[in-house]
C-alpha cells in the first residue's frame, strides 16, 4: 500500500481539532498549555457546544488563549476569571462557562475569587494549569512552588521559614460545600492525556447540567521557567511535583 492510499480523509484518526485555528501558538516548545488547549477544543466539539461555550482567559501565559480556539472568550483582569465566569453563567444559564487559569493567577492574586466562586457552587468549570511558577513574567516563585524548588526569586530554593509553604488549593477546594468535582490530572504522556480529557469532559458535563462548581487541576511543566528541555521537564515533574501534587480525583459528589 502506498502512502497516498493511506492518507485519505476516511483513514484520518487524529488531526488538529477543528476548533483550533491556524494561528501558531506563542507558547514555548513542549508547553503543557498547548496540550490542554487541544483537549478543550476536542471536548467542546464532541459535546457539540461550539456555539454555546464561553471561556474566560487569565493573565499569564494563557492570556492569548482567545486567539487559538474558535469559541467565545472574555478576558479577565489578573485573577478575576472566576468572578467574570460567575457573571457570564448567571446571565447565560444555557452556556458552558469555564475559566482557564495559571497558578499565579488562580492561587495567588485570584485566590479570593477562586475560593468564593467555588464555595458559592457557581455552575462553572475552573481549569487550573499548575506549573509551580509564574511562567509569563520570568519564572518567579508562586504560592504553588515546591519546598526547595529553585526559581528566579528564590535562587537558593523555597525555604518555608522565609517564603511559607506551598498552597495546595485543589485540596482546599475539596472541603468547600459548593464543589461537585475536584480532580488533579497531568498531560505528560498519552495515558495521562486521555485521563485528563475524560476529567475535563466530566467537569464540562457537570457544568452544563448545573451540578456544582468543578475544578480540574492540570499539573504542568514550564520548561523555559524550569530551565530544562521539555523531555527533562516532564521527568522532573514526575519525580518531584507528583509527590506533593498527587494525581487523581479528590472529590466527586456524583459517585
Amino acid at each position, binding site marked *: 500500500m502506498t502512502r497516498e492510499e493511506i492518507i485519505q480523509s476516511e483513514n484520518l484518526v487524529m488531526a*488538529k481539532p477543528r476548533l483550533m485555528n491556524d494561528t501558531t501558538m506563542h507558547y514555548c516548545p513542549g508547553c503543557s498549555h498547548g496540550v490542554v488547549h487541544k483537549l478543550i477544543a476536542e471536548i467542546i466539539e464532541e459535546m457539540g457546544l461550539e456555539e454555546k461555550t464561553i471561556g474566560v482567559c487569565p493573565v499569564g501565559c494563557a492570556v492569548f488563549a482567545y486567539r487559538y480556539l474558535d469559541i467565545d472568550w472574555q478576558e479577565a483582569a489578573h485573577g478575576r476569571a472566576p468572578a467574570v465566569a460567575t457573571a457570564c453563567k448567571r446571565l447565560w444559564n444555557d452556556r458552558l462557562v469555564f475559566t482557564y487559569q495559571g497558578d499565579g493567577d488562580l492561587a495567588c492574586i485570584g485566590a479570593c475569587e477562586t475560593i468564593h466562586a467555588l464555595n458559592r457552587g457557581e455552575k462553572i468549570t475552573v481549569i487550573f494549569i499548575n506549573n509551580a511558577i509564574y511562567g509569563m513574567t520570568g519564572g518567579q516563585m508562586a504560592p504553588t512552588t515546591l519546598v526547595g524548588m529553585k526559581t528566579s526569586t528564590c535562587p537558593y530554593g523555597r525555604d518555608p521559614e522565609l517564603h511559607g509553604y506551598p498552597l495546595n488549593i485543589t485540596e482546599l477546594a475539596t472541603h468547600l460545600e459548593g464543589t461537585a468535582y475536584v480532580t488533579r490530572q497531568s498531560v505528560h504522556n498519552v495515558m495521562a492525556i486521555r485521563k485528563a480529557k475524560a476529567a475535563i469532559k466530566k467537569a464540562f458535563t457537570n457544568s452544563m447540567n448545573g451540578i456544582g462548581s468543578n475544578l480540574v487541576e492540570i499539573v504542568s511543566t514550564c520548561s523555559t521557567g524550569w530551565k530544562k528541555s521539555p523531555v527533562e521537564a516532564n521527568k522532573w515533574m514526575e519525580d518531584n511535583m507528583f509527590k506533593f501534587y498527587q494525581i487523581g480525583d479528590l472529590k466527586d459528589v456524583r459517585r
Partner: protein
Amino acid sequence: MMKKIQGAIVINEERCKGCALCVETCPFGLLQIAVRKVNTQGYPYVEQTNETDCTGCANCATVCPDACISVYRKKVL
C-alpha cells in the same frame, strides 16, 4: 506474519517547535528532530525517518502541544 495495520503521518513543519515530545513518545522510534533545518519560526522541526513501520497509533499526535501531526490508519487486507 503480514502486518495488518499501516499508518501514516503528515507533519505540519511550520507549526512545529521541535520540542521532541513526540520523538520520545513514538513506540517504534520513527521520529527525529531534523538536523540543521529550521522552519520560518526558527525552530528545528520533527521528521519521520521510517514510514513503513508506522502503525498510526497516534501517540505522537496526542502528546504534540502544537497539534502539528495528522495521523492516518488503514487496515491491510
